[in-house]
């Protein structure tokens, strides 16, 4: 069966409409069918509609994504209560261990992000993976740092990614690979992202799942939850009216 590819992390400059258009068109050319664009939490609904129109013209599916950077677990819970129902993808950049643990066990978090530059702040260890395996959070790997870093920093990043993907595999935590691109030159085809995953021993099938199956599953689950028919997992409104 033909795979459907998704890039869940595009970060264009939203003030630059031309760049947004270029990046969406490039994603379409690179055979992606769904892109998630990071928007600020206070992004106006009319602007989201503008993004939707841009994607519609390029025959792409758009998902709205918010990146939360809480400093404490309490801040994370507050942000999740406020924004979970407004965005299709919620990613948490874990800047402390407490936040990482809270994000991993919270079923409202879709993606766990860790700093690619500070290796002491990558908290995806065995305990984190165990918590994430009981929740719904996936480990997100952005490819942008792999492309822009060089020398010892890239070597250290590859070593961390190799360890983290091995832990994720052991605990059955899904991995999602995204471009993290802020410029169309940093966007790559899904097969090229999968090839880059060879560098941290992810394996061909797991790498392709990380750019197709896993992100599409998150989107399907979240769209179902955000639909007005959703009541609880497995329960949804089939019909409304007096005769029900």
């Amino acid at each position: 069966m033909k795979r459907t590819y998704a890039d869940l992390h595009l970060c264009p400059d939203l003030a630059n409409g031309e760049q947004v258009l270029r990046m969406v068109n490039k994603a379409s050319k690179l055979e992606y069918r769904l892109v998630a664009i990071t928007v600020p939490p206070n992004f106006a609904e009319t602007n989201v509609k503008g993004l939707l129109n841009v994607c519609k013209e390029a025959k792409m599916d758009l998902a709205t994504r918010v990146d939360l950077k809480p400093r404490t677990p309490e801040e994370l819970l507050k942000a999740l209560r406020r924004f979970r129902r407004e965005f299709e993808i919620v990613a948490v950049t874990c800047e402390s261990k407490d936040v990482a643990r809270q994000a991993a066990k919270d079923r409202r978090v879709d993606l766990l992000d860790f700093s690619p530059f500070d290796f002491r702040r990558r908290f995806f260890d065995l305990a984190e993976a165990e918590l994430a395996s009981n929740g719904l959070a996936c480990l997100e790997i952005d490819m942008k740092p792999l492309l822009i870093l060089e020398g010892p920093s890239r070597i250290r990043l590859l070593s961390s990614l190799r360890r983290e993907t091995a832990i994720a595999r052991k605990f059955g935590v899904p991995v999602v690979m995204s471009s993290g691109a802020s410029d169309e030159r940093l966007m790559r085809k899904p097969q090229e992202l999968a090839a880059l995953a060879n560098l941290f021993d992810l394996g061909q099938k797991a790498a392709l799942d990380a750019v197709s199956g896993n992100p599409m599953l998150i989107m399907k689950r979240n769209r179902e939850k955000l639909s007005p028919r959703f009541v609880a997992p497995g329960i949804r409104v089939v019909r409304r009216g007096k005769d029900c």
Partner: protein
Amino acid sequence: MLKRAKRRYLALEIGCEEPIDSGELMNAVWNAVMKLYGEYGASQAGLSMIDYDPDKRRLVIRTAHTAVEMVRTALASITRIGNKAVAIHVLAVSGTIKALYKKIKP
């Protein structure tokens, strides 16, 4: 008996607005392979340029069939050639040049 070396041909699309000559391009490919896999890895790749069309920005290279994934990874890691921002995408991979051109024919 020594096994016949199998080869693969890759058609590449060069994403860059400025003109780039073929020498610069092949140097960038070699450097990317060497940076990621070292001289030992690069020696196994058996890279060579077959054709370059600067107007269409298309490059055809040949590599050993065992090194296709390695070359694909190295190509994906190229972001700059000199001071020009570049992205290289693999359009098609094939076992013969004839089949490769058939695949990329518009």
